[in-house]
């Protein structure tokens, strides 16, 4: 097999694989609705709305000491 054929096969299967991944991801997002932390995905848009430095984070960064 020359490099062009290999390329074509690699190409085809990777694209197929990625399409499956994408649809699995869409399915996952819309059925689970919530992230692993148990927060509804749409809640994350509040990060922009509620962005004072003293506001409570949606998910606290544990590594960071609370001041």
């Amino acid at each position, binding site marked *: 097999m020359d490099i062009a054929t290999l390329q074509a096969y*690699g190409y085809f299967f*990777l694209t197929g694989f990625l399409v499956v991944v994408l649809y699995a991801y869409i399915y996952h997002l819309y059925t689970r609705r919530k992230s692993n932390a148990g927060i509804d995905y749409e809640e994350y848009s509040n990060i922009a709305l509620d962005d004072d430095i003293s506001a409570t984070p949606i998910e606290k960064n544990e590594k960071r000491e609370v001041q």
Partner: protein
Amino acid sequence: MFHWLEKNPFFFAVAVFLTIAFAGLVEILPNFAQQSQPTVGTKPYSTLELAGRHVYIKNSCNACHSQLVRPFKAETDRYGHYSMSGEYAYDRPFLWGSKRTGPDLMRVGNYRTTDWHENHMKDPAGVVPGSIMPAYRWMFTNLADIDTAYAEQITVKNVFAVPYNKPLPMKDGSKEVVKLADSLSGAHASALAEAKLVVADMNDKNVKEMVNNGQIPEIVAIIAYMNSLK
């Protein structure tokens, strides 16, 4: 599972990078394995031509002129044979351009002459009424940079094995050698010899005098370059 990425900037960045890089890996890398082979008749640039190419680049001629004839009847009628990959084998950088405010120059050497260029660069609208190209009069006094052209020749010969001093097949079956001088002074001498051939067809007295005094103005170099585009 996916949300984990969104909280781990490092792995998130890795994932984004892989997603972005994927297309380049598949599309670009394999093509580089196949080195582009020069077509028969394609020669590396001489010192003066390369200096002219630098003048072309210095003034961004490629902002308005393409060097890519597409395979359509209208284009081959106007500009000549459509472009082939091998014809660009010695072009670093490529000068295809992205806009044709003026016509394509891929094969301009086939149908324009030294004195046409001379008059046109001095006063474009005088040669082509209605032309919106600006005049390039400073090229008649600025000196071409032969040193840098020679440095580039040495570089491409040593690094990319560009075949200077080697017999190359021409379209008529003959062989031709593009010589590369051994020294900087040799490069100047050969560029000057070439410049004298160009100047023989020019009218500008100043330019003729400069070349007689061993100086090469930019206009001579760029005309030598454009005459080589065939």
